[in-house]
Structures are given as C-alpha cells and as structure tokens.
C-alpha cells in the first residue's frame, strides 16, 4: 500500500515522469510507493495497449470499392441535377424576361389609350333632344324640345383660351369639340334666359340637373369657382318671390282655476 499522501500523485508520475521532485525523492526511500508506481505503470501500459488494439484494425478493401461505387452514383445524380437546374434557371430567367416585357407593353399601351381618351372624364353627349343651332333658332316653342333636354346644361362654347388650356392638358378636347362647332343651345335657354352675368359650366362637361333648377346650378357652379357659396343667392328671383312669411297667432294659455270659474259662472247664468 502506497503512502496516502503520495497515492494520487503516482499516476501523474507515470504519465509525466520526473515532474514531481518531492515524489521522486520520496520514492527513493519508500518501497511500497515504488511498488504502487510499478503497478500504475503496468496499468497505464495495459490501457494504452487496449486502446491501441482497439484502433489498430484496418478497414477491409471492400470499403474503398463501395465508397467509389457510391461516389459514382453521386456524380451521376449531381450531373443530372446540374442539367435540370441549368434548364430550370434558364426557363426562369426567360420567364422573368417575358413577364417584364409584357408588363412594359401593357403599361405603355394603357398610357397611349389614356392619352387618346383624355385624361378627364369623357364629355357626356347631349344625345337626347339636343337640337342643332339652326333648329333652335327657328324653333321658338318651349314644348318643341324634349323635356330631358331642358335639364341638360350644354357645354360652354369653346374659346381659344380654353382650347389652349385643353391642348396643354392633353389636346383631346380640341379633337372632340372643334373650334368651329358652335355650342348647342337649348330651348330652355330661350324660354328662361339666363342672366348675362351667369357663368357657364366648365368646358367639356354636361351636367344633368333636376327640372327647373338650371339657374340654381349655374349659380352654384359660379359660387364654387369663386370659393364663396351664398345659399340665399343661389335661389332664383322667382323662387324668392314665392317665399311669403306665415303669420301664426300666439297661443293663449288659461289657468285651470279660471277655466273652472268660468264654467261655474256659465252654469249659474244658465
């Protein structure tokens, strides 16, 4: 049995001989510790031998041939995969390019169509009962035009300034309504002529309004343009005349006691 103090250090001495000077000097005078050191040394050599034997085996030659066969198979798969991947990438790139081209084509085509049709809303044609200027001039009867026509505000006559503006905005208004074309005049304008000061509607727009409210709408448009809307001013003079104040007699409130007294006095009188 080794000395208890040195027992744990004996293994270190076996693994790294001479590192522990104190133990080396002790071993010179202690036979038991020397014997324990010899046993530890033998154990270490046995352990090392076992481990070395454990990892000393060589693989069979068949291992290399098996690995080579499997590597060949991997190469074949990779080659096939590379080809299909290259094809896939090619198709993807082509598809993306075609999609981009189609997108550009659609974009430019839609832009061209928008230019042709005008940037704003299309003018509403006064298709129903819009008489030609000559017809309007000869026809003096208000009933001769269709009732719907009375409610349609005609587009304003296109002035040269308006033509310039519209051409600056896209130049489509000039094509739709040439300068030589006079604005259609409605019979309602003759029967109830608008005041000279009344503004006209915006060029290129026709507005359908309820019957009898043409002037009011014109005034509303003018007010909206100036930014000041006076509700009373929107009413036509005739409508203002029709407004007459109503007189309501004040209510008389009598107390209940007075009512009773009155009824009693009435009964006495009877």
């Amino acid at each position: 049995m080794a000395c208890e103090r040195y027992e744990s250090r004996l293994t270190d001495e076996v693994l790294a001989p001479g590192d522990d000077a104190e133990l080396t000097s002790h071993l010179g005078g202690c036979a038991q510790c020397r014997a324990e050191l010899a046993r530890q040394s033998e154990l270490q050599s046995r352990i090392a031998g076992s481990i070395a034997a454990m990892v000393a085996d060589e693989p069979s030659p068949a291992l290399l041939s098996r690995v080579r066969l499997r590597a060949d198979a991997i190469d074949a798969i990779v080659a096939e995969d590379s080809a299909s991947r290259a094809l896939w990438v090619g198709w993807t790139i082509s598809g993306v390019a075609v999609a981009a081209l189609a997108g550009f084509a659609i974009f430019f085509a839609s832009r061209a169509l928008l230019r042709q049709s005008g940037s704003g809303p299309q003018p509403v044609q006064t298709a129903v009962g819009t008489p030609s200027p000559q017809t309007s001039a000869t026809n003096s009867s208000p009933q001769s035009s269709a009732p719907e026509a009375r409610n349609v505000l005609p587009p304003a006559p296109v002035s040269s300034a308006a033509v310039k503006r519209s051409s600056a905005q896209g130049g489509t208004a000039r094509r739709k309504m040439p300068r030589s074309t006079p604005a259609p005049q409605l019979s309602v304008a003759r029967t109830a002529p608008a005041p000279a000061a009344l503004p006209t509607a915006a060029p290129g727009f026709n507005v359908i309004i309820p019957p009898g409210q043409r002037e009011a709408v014109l005034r509303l448009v003018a007010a909206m343009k100036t930014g000041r809307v006076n509700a009373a001013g929107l009413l036509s003079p005739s409508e203002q005349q029709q407004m007459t104040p109503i007189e309501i007699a004040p209510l008389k409130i009598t107390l209940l006691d007075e009512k009773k007294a009155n009824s009693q006095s009435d009964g006495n009188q009877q």
Partner: protein
Amino acid sequence: MQALEAILPGSRVQGENETAELRREFEEQLADGASLAFRLAMSVLRNHADAEEVAQEALLRAYRGFHRLRERGAFRGWLCRIAWRLALDKQRGTRRREKREVVAVLDSPVLNAEQIAASNEFERHVAKAMDELPEKLRQALVLAAIQGYTTKEVAELLDLPEGTIKSRVHLARKQMAEKLSWLVKDTNRD
C-alpha cells in the same frame, strides 16, 4: 455553368471537368481518410461491420460536400469530425443493446482481477471506462492512440493548440487509471 452557380449560391452546378477534378482530389485523400474514419468509428463502436458502415457514410458525406471545402488540407480534420459524430449517433442507437451485453458480462460469475486482466474482459472494462470519459478527452485519447499520429498531428486534426491536446490526453489517461485501478489493487491482494 459558373454563371449559373453564381446566380444560385450554394448550388452544386458542375461541369464534367470540374467533377473529374473534384473526384481526382477526393481519390487522393480517400485511402488515408478511410483508414482514419474507420479507426475512429471503431474506437467508439468496437464493431468491425458497424465501424465500416459509419466510415463509408462519413466518406460519402465528405464527398458530397467536398466542392465546398476550400482548403483541401483540412479534409482529414473535417472527415474526422463527421465520422466521430456519426459513430456517436450510431452508438446511441445501439446503446441499449450494448448496455444489456455489458450488464450481462458484469453480472457474470465474479472473476478475480488476474483472470479478468488475462482475458478479453479487461478490454471490455477499458472500453466501458472510455465511454464514460467526456467527449473531448475521449476524442483526444483515441486520436493519440492511433499509430502514427503525434500530438502535433492530433492538434492539427482537431484544430487545437498542441498544449491543449497534451493536457486532454493526460487528463483522460489519469481518469482511466482511476477507474481501472481496482483491477491492479485486486491483483495485489491476491
């Protein structure tokens, strides 16, 4: 092909020449690598067939990723890690069966230490003690035990300082000795 590979990074798009070159480089490493992978697997599994299976799988995995390995000199260390991990995985899968076998051996009629040491049972005890070592110590001990590998080479394989490997090997041997010293003491008593 290279352009396509640049578009899809990480993809393995190879031409025939590139594949042949990779294969040639792999073949140069194959014989040495197979031996190393097998021995490592053997140290963990202690079964020839299982170790060959693990070595084969490790080599094939290394081959699949060989094109990503920039430094060919690092191949052995890389293969070493793959084989070690695969072997440990396989060992975990068969641990229950192995445990039964070890328990059966340990529960067998008690032999004295000399008899145990004289028989193959000593190696079983060594193997069991090795399995109980921490993984880092175990790996360093096994690699240092493989014939032909110096501490410096083991350090290069594991990409660690040489001093660290020396320390780990020393610690592993000491722990092994502490676990197996009862065999020597029993012999003394007899």
